[in-house]
């Protein structure tokens, strides 16, 4: 077949080959592929932990217009917490978070799909999500192809704002369940009784990046309220979680940051296609 004259396309914008981007070490890539998660110690320094805690608590008392609070039994969820600004906004572009997300999802074509502040009280109950092929949420799909090119869909970063260990309010997962071919049989089992469940001990400021396709849950804290921050990323064409669309105010105040602008823009397929770009509001 006769080849047409082609313009040189930057690798990042080329559709059918990999992005070739590598930020994780070989060991991290291998670990994430096998286990479905990565822990980042000291993601926030103590000052940032305090700032995040205060901001979440303030928002819970006096939410701003663009943050929605959903109250469940023993749990408060603050949807679209990125709107609160400060550290809660800046965290979305921390290199230690963004680089793995770009590598795991789709190079520079990632966007912030949801952000949440979570306040868990003693007694909060969470069921263990299904993982792998048994997860009915197709938008969570874990994918890794030739030469280790990841193309995961929804991927989550959870940041602990308390020390969580020994089953006290800990985040827990079933390692490797993102590749499970069968549903887990623990839907009616208390988390404490699931032997294959692994507690991830995190100190305040530590974070974990995991495929949403991994079976996971957060255990109830025993004595006090525990605070968490959750950021979910997806490919550029994934819609925002309802209630997590970036407001005009947020878009305006982040205009100076090319990266924030990219993460917060409306969903898109082709970044270079001005036809679609021009006519998208």
């Amino acid at each position: 077949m006769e080849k047409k004259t082609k313009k040189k396309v930057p690798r990042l914008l080329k559709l059918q080959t990999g992005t070739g981007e590598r930020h994780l070490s070989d060991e991290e890539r291998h670990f994430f592929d096998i286990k479905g998660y990565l822990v980042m110690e000291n993601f926030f320094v103590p000052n940032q932990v305090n700032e995040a805690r205060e901001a979440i608590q303030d928002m819970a008392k006096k939410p701003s217009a663009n943050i929605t609070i959903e109250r469940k039994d023993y749990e408060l969820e603050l949807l679209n917490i990125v709107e609160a600004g400060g550290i809660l906004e800046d965290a979305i572009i921390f290199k230690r978070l963004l680089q793995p997300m770009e590598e795991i999802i789709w190079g520079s074509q990632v966007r912030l799909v949801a952000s949440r502040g979570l306040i868990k009280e003693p007694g909060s109950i969470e069921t263990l999500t299904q993982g792998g092929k048994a997860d009915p949420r197709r938008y969570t799909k874990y994918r890794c192809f030739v030469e280790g090119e990841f193309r995961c869909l929804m991927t989550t970063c959870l940041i602990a704002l308390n020390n969580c260990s020994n089953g006290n309010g800990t985040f827990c997962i079933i390692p490797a369940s993102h590749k499970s071919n069968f549903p887990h049989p623990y839907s009616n089992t208390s988390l404490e009784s699931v032997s294959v469940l692994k507690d991830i001990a995190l100190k305040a400021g530590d974070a974990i990046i995991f495929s949403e396709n991994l079976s996971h849950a957060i255990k109830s804290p025993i004595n006090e309220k525990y605070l968490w921050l959750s950021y979910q990323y997806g490919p550029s064409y994934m819609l925002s979680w309802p209630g997590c669309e970036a407001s005009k105010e947020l878009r305006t105040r982040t205009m100076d940051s090319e990266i924030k602008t990219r993460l917060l823009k409306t969903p898109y397929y082709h970044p270079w296609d001005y036809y679609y770009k021009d006519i998208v509001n």
Partner: protein
Amino acid sequence: MTPEERYLFDLQGFLFIPEAISKDLVQQMNDDIDQMESLNDEEANKLGLYRKYHNNNKDHPGHNPSGYDCNILSRGGPFEALIDCPRTLPYIDSMINEPFRLDGYMFMIRNQGCRTVFHHGYAELLPYSEFAVEEGEFKCVSVKIAYALRDVSVEEGCFAVIPGSHKSNFDNPFEGMNPDKNHPLVEPCPCKAGDAVIFTEDLTHGSMINQSKKTRRTLFISYAPAFQSPWGKLVDTADGFEERATSRQLELIRGPSPFAIV
């Protein structure tokens, strides 16, 4: 889908649907397009129609522009009938297999000298176009329908595919090339007006060079799971659509709840 249709769609990545739309509807759409063609760009833009030109007919300088794409659903009228075409929508349902939306509706004109180069295939790295089968059910994330509005032969620049390329494990060496009818991998898909080709976006596809003086007219309609976004204004509708539309049409355009499955 019949067992044979399931087998063929899995095997080849596309299905040919003869007489998918009635002659009467085809005529109404062509009449409307004739009217639209009489508008210049400025007049079209005022009506919410935006043309994306393809000026790639260097061999036929007398026929510029050689083709364009256009968000024709905002024209309304007979085009709304294809949002939920009863002949084709059940296939989409079986191929995507979860709540889905119409994510793009585009009209394409291809004049003499114009073609669409081969693109896609080996698209496992292009996540929005994935072809997948799980436990005997299709789980595709982008399925398109090409409706021919005029008879189109190989010489008139018909749609063309590389059957089976949706399962390729290697980079597509023909990406960006003109489809060549003599190449053993290439299958041109000549159509009669009203016929349709349903294909997974994962399939390597394009169109033959239009070597005739006849203009090819095609509608491309695309569907995707609810969590995927629409393609910009390619799902914009005409005034009064919400009042006219059936509940199914409204759901397909607005999109079902994107993360309803938890």
